[in-house]
């Protein structure tokens, strides 16, 4: 008679069998080693809780290089068995940006801490900054950086809020958030109070944006719920578990207007944002209706999502319902977590992919222009793979340089899974899940290629953030994944086939908002295909990345033209450039272009 000690055991057995069966299916030749991969470091301290160790895995589209590059960050949530403090299951953000101005991408990880905030004892595990050294190795440079925030951290965003040419950092916490000014050379100063920012609600994702087109960066903070730590929730078997959002009231998000000189003003009510008080988790700021004004999309947990359409007069209207981006195809609110934004169908506007709880699909909202959005999840095959998983971090990126945006989703449950995926011991074993990578087949439909991703898709963890970034500067996008109560992992991209091309584009404004957050870049391939990228720093869940556009170009050795829709509403066209390089485009150096002209030319 089968009488397993734990009801998870049959699943774990199945997992093992499946892993063995699939492990040898996707043999790939090792890719050319990147500078980072050449570094020798000690053996991994954190083998993932799965059936195979990294050394026994077959090579795939991605290769984990965490230890090779000297990264030893391990997220701490302060977890105490039996407490089920809700915030501990939702944190774990990060940012990838050049913190010290040396031209290399650095890593900043937001930590919750080694104590729950309800604990009287002080936290001793701060957020951590890792600076990239020559040779691609990372060094823990937290001490003395000023970024060692001790708040119960959730996520962060980046932006040059003081227009001094470097990226500042805003950290969201369960408790008061913190704004750090970048003073250069990897040193930051907490300027929260001086800036007039005082958000003590439980904040999750945040994003800088220039909503009023005055040239400086304003700040949007997605607040979650008003948590009562004393409330105890249970699963359907009556076992203690993490609460869902509906156990508590939602909290209004915050919009801060940059007044210049390092000061911000809370304009939440004046801008109309106070009209909603939902459980916000993810936020993306981009021009969704292509009217030249940046809009705000907020993924809310079990509430309708918001699509704050910029009215151009300092106010916003939430048109998510009438534009079809509030509810899924069935008219239901879902557990919105992270937001992917991009144009995978290459129709010239920005679509959304919102991650959700297991038993829901992640949802793909296709932008239909003036008709709003349509849930096309099933049509593009983005639903089936996600049904049994709880998605958080998500990013559209062209990992294989075929000129079609693919999508990465990282997962991890927020409630005890009905079927645990591992028999490994430990509290988190009931929550861990694998990650997903879905490849765009070039028509806008997706194919699950997770089995080919090696450790990225095999490791069972409680993942939260995923950031595509060219850490090793070899032209393709690597993946940085954060995990609750686990190590942050870096996966080197070994996918692009020989002969596939890429281009990295940085756009620049003179003076303020130098990174041109809110701009849209269109790369036109010689065959006329248009690839668009929003210039954003924050997307996905709790994460941020240096705002640079990356294009996979397929077999095109050049782009015939670059078109930039600047945040001030102007459009400019720039001459074509060769693939395989990083270019910087400055406003005013191109030719003014009108939408009609560009349409004719295309």
């Amino acid at each position, binding site marked *: 008679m089968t009488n397993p*000690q734990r009801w998870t055991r049959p699943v774990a057995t199945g997992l093992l069998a499946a892993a063995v069966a699939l492990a040898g299916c996707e043999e790939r030749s090792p890719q050319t080693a990147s500078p980072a991969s050449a570094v020798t470091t000690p053996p991994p301290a954190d083998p993932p809780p799965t059936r195979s160790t990294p050394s026994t895995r077959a090579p795939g589209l991605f290769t984990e290089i965490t230890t090779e590059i000297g990264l030893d960050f391990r997220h701490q949530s302060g977890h105490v068995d039996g407490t089920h403090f809700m915030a501990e299951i939702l944190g774990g953000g990060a940012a990838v940006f050049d913190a010290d101005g040396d031209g290399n991408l650095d890593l900043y990880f937001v930590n919750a801490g080694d104590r729950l905030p309800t604990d009287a004892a002080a936290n001793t595990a701060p957020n951590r900054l890792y600076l990239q050294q020559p040779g691609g190795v990372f060094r823990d440079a937290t001490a003395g950086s000023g970024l060692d925030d001790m708040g119960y951290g959730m996520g962060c965003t980046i932006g040059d809020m003081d227009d001094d040419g470097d990226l500042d950092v805003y950290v969201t916490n369960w408790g008061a958030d913190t704004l750090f000014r970048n003073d250069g050379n990897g040193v930051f100063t907490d300027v929260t109070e001086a800036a007039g920012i005082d958000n003590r609600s439980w904040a999750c994702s945040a994003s800088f944006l220039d909503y009023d087109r005055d040239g400086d960066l304003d700040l949007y903070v997605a607040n979650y719920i008003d948590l009562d730590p004393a*409330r105890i929730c249970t699963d359907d078997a009556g076992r203690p578990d993490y609460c869902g959002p509906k156990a508590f009231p939602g909290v209004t998000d915050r919009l801060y207007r940059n007044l210049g000189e390092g000061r911000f003003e809370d304009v939440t009510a004046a801008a109309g944002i106070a009209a909603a008080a939902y459980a916000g988790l993810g936020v993306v700021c981009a021009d969704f209706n292509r009217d030249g004004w940046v809009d705000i999309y907020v993924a809310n947990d079990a509430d309708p999502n918001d699509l704050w359409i910029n009215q151009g007069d300092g106010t916003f209207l939430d048109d998510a319902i*009438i534009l079809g981006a509030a509810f899924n195809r069935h008219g239901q609110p879902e557990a919105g977590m992270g937001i992917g934004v991009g144009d995978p169908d290459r129709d010239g506007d920005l679509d959304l992919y919102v991650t959700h709880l297991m038993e829901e699909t992640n949802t793909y909202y296709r932008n239909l222009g003036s008709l709003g959005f349509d849930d096309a999840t099933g049509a593009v095959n983005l639903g089936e793979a996600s049904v049994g998983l709880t998605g958080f971090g998500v990013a559209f990126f062209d990992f294989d340089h075929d000129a079609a945006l693919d999508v990465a989703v990282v997962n991890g449950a927020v409630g005890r899974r009905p079927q645990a995926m591992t028999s490994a011991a430990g509290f988190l074993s009931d929550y861990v899940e694998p990650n997903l990578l879905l490849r765009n087949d070039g028509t806008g439909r997706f194919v699950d290629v997770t089995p080919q991703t090696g450790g990225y898709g095999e490791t069972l963890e409680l993942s939260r953030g995923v950031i595509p970034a060219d850490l090793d500067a070899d032209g393709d996008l690597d993946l940085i994944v954060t995990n609750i109560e686990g190590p942050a992992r870096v996966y080197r991209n070994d996918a692009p086939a020989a002969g596939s091309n890429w281009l990295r584009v940085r756009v620049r404004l003179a003076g303020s908002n130098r990174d041109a957050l809110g701009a849209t870049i269109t790369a036109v391939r010689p065959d006329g295909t248009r690839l668009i990228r929003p210039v954003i720093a924050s997307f996905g869940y709790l994460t941020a990345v240096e705002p640079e556009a990356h294009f996979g170009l397929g077999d095109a050795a050049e782009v015939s033209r670059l078109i930039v829709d600047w945040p001030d509403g102007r459009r400019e066209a720039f001459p074509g450039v060769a693939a395989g390089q990083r270019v910087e485009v400055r406003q005013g150096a191109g030719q003014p272009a009108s939408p009609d002209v560009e349409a004719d030319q295309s």
Partner: protein
Amino acid sequence: MNRQRIIAIFAALILTAGVAARADDIPLPDLSDAQPQVREKILASHARVEAGRGRSEAWGRYGMVLHAHSCLTEAAHAYAAARRLSPKEYRWPYFEAIVSQKVDPRRALELFDAARAIDPDYVPALIHRGRLLETLGDREAAEQSYARAVELDPDSCPALLHQGKLALQNGDLSVAVTALEAAARLAPEDRAVLATLARVYQRAGRRADARAVAERARSAEAQTPFSDPLYAEVRWEAVNIRAFQQRATALRDKGDFAAARRELVRAERFAPDDPSVQAALAEIHWREGNLLAAVTAGRRALASDMRFDDLHQVLAIVHFELDHFDEADHHAVIALRETPDDPDLHVIRGEALTRRGEIDAAIGHLEVAVTLKPDADAGRLRLGQLLARQGRLDEAVTHLTAVAQANPRDVETLAILGLTQMRRQAFAEAETALAAATTLAPKNPGLIRAHAAALIGARRFREAAVRLERAWPLHPEAWGLLNDLAWLRATCPDASVRNGQAAVTHAETLVADPARRTPSHLDTLAAAYAETGRFGPAVKAMDEAIAATPVSSPSREAYVQRRVRYQSQRPYHAE
């Protein structure tokens, strides 16, 4: 680990389930930290399978119990065993499909199709199937499934919703409008229907309609429960505390408070110290009118560290209804921190502050209440009273008139309005209000006196006299009424109404009992005597009145002056 692997695992589990069942293995989840009643229920159901391994119903029921407690792997095993033992039974593949769709849509589709082979026309299954087909990208098949559902049940709101939604996606706006408006008629507060209808209106260029419906969708609570009688049986198997609470909430929302209470009492039996159960009980007790029980349950909930913002609101109202104003105020203060725009809480605060004599603060809360909720009549009435008390008579009358117009048969409002109008010297308006009040409450001598006073103020003396004359025999113990009548007869400026002898008769009746020889009654007696020319007895009566009146009383000086008047042989009416 990927999608295919998850599916492979699930398939392996299902297969294992089959093998296990054939071998008479009965899966049992780890119940070590499950709630005791859940453990007990699962074990009991497990035992029934053990006692009858060949019985499909025992396996299926076991699956339902496991399913209800989210032991999905084991539930799938049990359903599979039941399905094999009884291949013609619809429920088992159907329930197994519902389990499977949480993990593996393709497997679920196979199972829905297996169920369809047994009964092709179960509408909830057609809707589930349509949704799955959408997830899998087969919109055309989904449309067929929904169309069949609508054909079988034209009043199925979910079927109409999904049909309308797909029509919208196909750009067929007229079909979409027809289906969704029909759905909205069936479920006018269904958020999914309203949200989808808003999108249809937007696409159709009906922008104003779209915004209006979108606003309704935003404030709508949730979707109309998916009516699925078969699956409801699964839900009813759940015995975890949350299930009781969810059922209680659903029953409460239907207005069946007694049934909701029964669910909560069951939960309380299993978890007597669960503060959330107590909080829910407090609310139900209140809704049933069991105020003291509500207070008791509420106190038990609040004895925990948990925060219950809604409970404070309930307890504020409960204590208010029990006239426990300090307690009501305590809870209202806490509740207002979370819901500062709740007009009822402001009314409660206003009332409590009034009773503590903090009138200005009370007025502040009541003004907020009536701004937030213009039809908050109780608050507006109290506000009118307080403003009148503060001498802000015009403002008071504005509020009181509004309440009276909204409640034209409310005697208290009419009386307060009439008295306030009298204070404004608006006697005609006062008379109108008080006449209406006395018509509604003809046996209230106080109101009759007030009405007569208004008539006197309006110089309608004869009508006042008639009013009092007629009322007195009906209220022989209403000495105030008799006093008014005697005074009017003794002192009325209109000579045709004055009647000194009648006044003396009434006044002597008034003071016949020594206990009623009050200064006011003696003052009336003196005026009556003076009107009949009997100034000596009049002076004597005034002496007695003055002697009984404290020196500090403002009436005393008037009495002294009247005594002088009578002593100089002048009656009152010549004043």
